[in-house]
């Protein structure tokens, strides 16, 4: 019992005073309308489980249905470390819950082979690209994803972007030089999903960075950030991935490590905490974390770009939960958006609430996710936006899906912030400034 209590962060559950302040912030409490699916309810269930009062079956569903969006932690007056409690609960569930053999095999493929592997991610990218040319079947067969769960991939496949050919992927250089005098050396953490499905956005990102006056390095050895692993309770592999990334970026000796996926960025800044009992790695992680920045933060800090092409559109912004609630980056994307000439920025009601994509939540909790997405689309429609801007690949796909489900493709689009900035003709203000 003691051991379990330690593992599941039992002591941290006492920080919760049951005040309920987190209820209005929680998207699943709103969509599922039960205390069981609220932060307070989940924390209580973890506590009851750690005390042996409920069994693991009673814990599983409420934990599985949590988005991990961390909105609860932001409003909590007593600073309950919800994400730690959630992560450890997932870890225990992952160890203890009976899984079907198929599920195990599929999870193993996804977490041990697909996400950490560049080859695999390229292959998914290429397979998706292949699919665009040749049909869905081959993608599903190649990745083995359908064996895992009813994944509704068909839904997502309809909104996938145009993918570059394998040759185009190969052509990307490892280094891109600043336009004008270089202000800094930046390592680009490309992110698995961004780099496979949204490879073209990453290409624009590199261009954007060079225009902003920095040299860009893309270490080959970098791997998955580990977010999806940690959120599914696989802390062990999450640590291994962290080590590989720290090593990869140490080698390049960069000033900043920049990323454009809110979810990855949130994981990267938590690397230090992973190594509480490994002092040497802890130090190295600390140095790594100090350099991590979201692209929007970096651009605002550099303050080197002007936007030369007006964008005459109504634009709204859907924050990435992990960027907002974990990295706590709120203002920079808005600052950048508002600096684009011609833009009519309109805030949607609840722009800080999760869109329901939440890592792979929209794949494995499809029905719940769609309820949340429908609510989100209801909040977006009154803004009359032409363009929904996001800062995370999962959110971007989800928004695209939302537009598709509403049948609004001909008057609304979803883009990554980087894409919109790119469209707005970014030019370096004073190329020879230091």
């Amino acid at each position: 019992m003691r051991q379990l209590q330690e593992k599941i962060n039992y002591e941290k559950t006492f920080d919760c005073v049951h005040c309920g302040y987190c209820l209005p912030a929680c998207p699943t409490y709103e969509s599922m309308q039960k205390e069981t699916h609220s932060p307070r309810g989940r924390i209580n269930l973890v506590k009851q489980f750690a005390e042996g009062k409920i069994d693991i079956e009673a814990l599983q569903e409420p934990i599985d249905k949590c988005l991990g969006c961390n909105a609860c932690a932001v409003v909590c007056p007593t600073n309950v470390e919800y994400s730690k409690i959630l992560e450890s609960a997932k870890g225990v569930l992952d160890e203890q819950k009976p899984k079907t053999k198929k599920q195990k095999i599929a999870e193993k493929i996804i977490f041990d082979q697909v996400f950490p592997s560049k080859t695999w991610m390229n292959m998914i990218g290429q397979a998706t690209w292949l699919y665009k040319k040749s049909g869905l079947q081959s993608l599903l067969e190649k990745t083995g994803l359908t064996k895992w769960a009813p994944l509704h991939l068909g839904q997502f496949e309809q909104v996938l972007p145009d993918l570059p050919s394998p040759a185009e992927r190969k052509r990307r250089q490892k280094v891109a030089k600043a336009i004008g005098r270089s202000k800094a050396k930046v390592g680009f953490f490309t992110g698995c999903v961004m780099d496979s499905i949204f490879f073209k956005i990453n290409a624009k990102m590199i261009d954007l960075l060079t225009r902003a006056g920095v040299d860009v390095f893309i270490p080959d050895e970098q791997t998955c950030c580990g977010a999806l692993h940690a959120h599914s309770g696989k802390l062990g592999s999450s640590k291994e991935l962290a080590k590989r990334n720290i090593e990869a970026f140490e080698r390049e000796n960069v000033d900043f490590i920049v990323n454009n996926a809110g979810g990855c960025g949130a994981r990267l800044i938590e690397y230090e905490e992973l190594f509480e009992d490994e002092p040497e790695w802890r130090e190295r992680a600390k140095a790594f974390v100090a350099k991590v920045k979201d692209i929007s933060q970096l651009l605002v800090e550099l303050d080197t770009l002007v936007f030369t092409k007006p964008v005459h559109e109504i634009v709204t912004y859907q924050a990435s939960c992990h960027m907002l609630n974990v990295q706590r980056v709120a203002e920079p994307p808005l600052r950048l958006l508002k600096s684009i000439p011609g833009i009519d920025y309109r805030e949607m009601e609840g722009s800080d609430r999760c869109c329901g994509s939440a890592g792979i939540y929209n794949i494995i909790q499809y029905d719940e996710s769609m309820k949340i997405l429908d609510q989100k689309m209801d909040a977006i429609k009154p803004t009359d936006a032409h363009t929904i801007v996001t800062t995370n690949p999962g959110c971007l796909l989800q928004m695209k899906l939302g537009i598709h489900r509403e049948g609004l493709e001909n008057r609304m689009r979803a883009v990554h912030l980087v894409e919109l900035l790119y469209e707005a003709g970014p030019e370096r203000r004073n190329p020879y400034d230091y």
Partner: protein
Amino acid sequence: MDEACLRELSKIFAQDQLLTNLSDLHSYSYDASFGTYLPNAVVQVKNVDEVSAVLKLANRYRVPVYPRGQGTSLSGGPLPVKGGIVMDLSQWKQKLEIYPDDLVAIVSPGVLTSEINKAAEKYGLMYPPDPSSSHVSTIGGNLAENSGGPKGLKYGVTKDYVLGLEVVTPEGEFIRTGGRTIKNVTGYDLTKLIVGSEGTLGVITKAFLKLIPKPPTTQTMMAVFDDLVISGKAISKVLTSGILPAKIELMDRSSIIAVENYRPLGLPVEAEAILLIQLDGHEETLNKEIEETNRIVREVGARETVIPGSREEADQLWQARKLVSPAIVTLKPTKVSEDVAVPRSKIPDMIDRLNRIKEKYNIHLVVFGHAGDGNLHPNIICDQRDTEEMIQVEQAVSEIFNAAIELGGTLSGEHGIGTMKSPFMEEELGSITLDMMRRIKTAWDPNHILNPGKIFPEPDQNSLVLRDG
């Protein structure tokens, strides 16, 4: 609970409205106070027929029913202490209508209190009761607890804004009390009886609320004192000078230090007390009134006063008051928050008594609250897991209650009696008054179905217990 009763429930309710699995039962076993009690079932009601059907069924099977809003009660109000059915009203939030010409709002019980005010503001109106939990708690819970907040000083509490109610009685009959008019003297005032009855006399299914014009602007002031007693005098002096602030909030030295440690805002940490005062009204009047207030508090002996120059600066001062609660739990995780009220003139005495109790039991005791209306929040910071300490705390709390009653005050200014304070009822009210209340309860609820175990002490319940099991 009878299997047959459960079967009948499942005929009334759709599957997703009747919760019986273990994770759901645990999730409705607590509120924001102490103790957890498992119900046998939870029903999520959304109309009068459902409420009525549950209560009729419960009377037939003699099963207790506990109304529940968002479970933020600090006194154990919605806890299913005797098992049975928790009736969740928090999802019945569909109706929120504002009638600006009548200055009336009509709401269903699950609407969040702050939403009512937000809706009223669109018409230049306001719904003044402002418990700090107003963005989480339901209007049904507020009505049942007769909740109040800082603005109670000038504007009163929930009961002052209720024109009429729709209620299902404990036996399952639908009634209306009051109406939509400001004046109404037809018969007993059942509205006022239901308000503050803590879910023991009926389930509120709709409320007709009074709105008032929203004052155009506000002005804030902080006054710093080297002596708590003098801060008490300053309050009286302001209130007898023809100025009625919207709020006067007090923070004692330990709460000032706690907030400063938690988030440095530049509060005067060496002061014994600060008062935060907010005036509201028209700008010209306010400018005069704030000057006058400034003069008065300095005359009485404030060491320093601060009048913020901008909205942001004012917000920051109020932020300090809001941070007291989170700041104090960083010391230890458990917070026992009391809300005794005393006549305003007795605030200094009460604070003195609190200090002595603090020393006697060697506990972390912090005092803040709505000093303007005599409602103090002595909070004891402790650790639930430390049984020894909790026993000390229980004794200290009893002594706090006694002190308040001796000073002519009351057990609870706004949080209600629930399970936590029932052992002290007789002491404050006397046996005859308490018996009259019991008779009212029995007349309304002959089978003791609705929210049993609250307000009235159980036969074996003679002291406060904050420990589980």
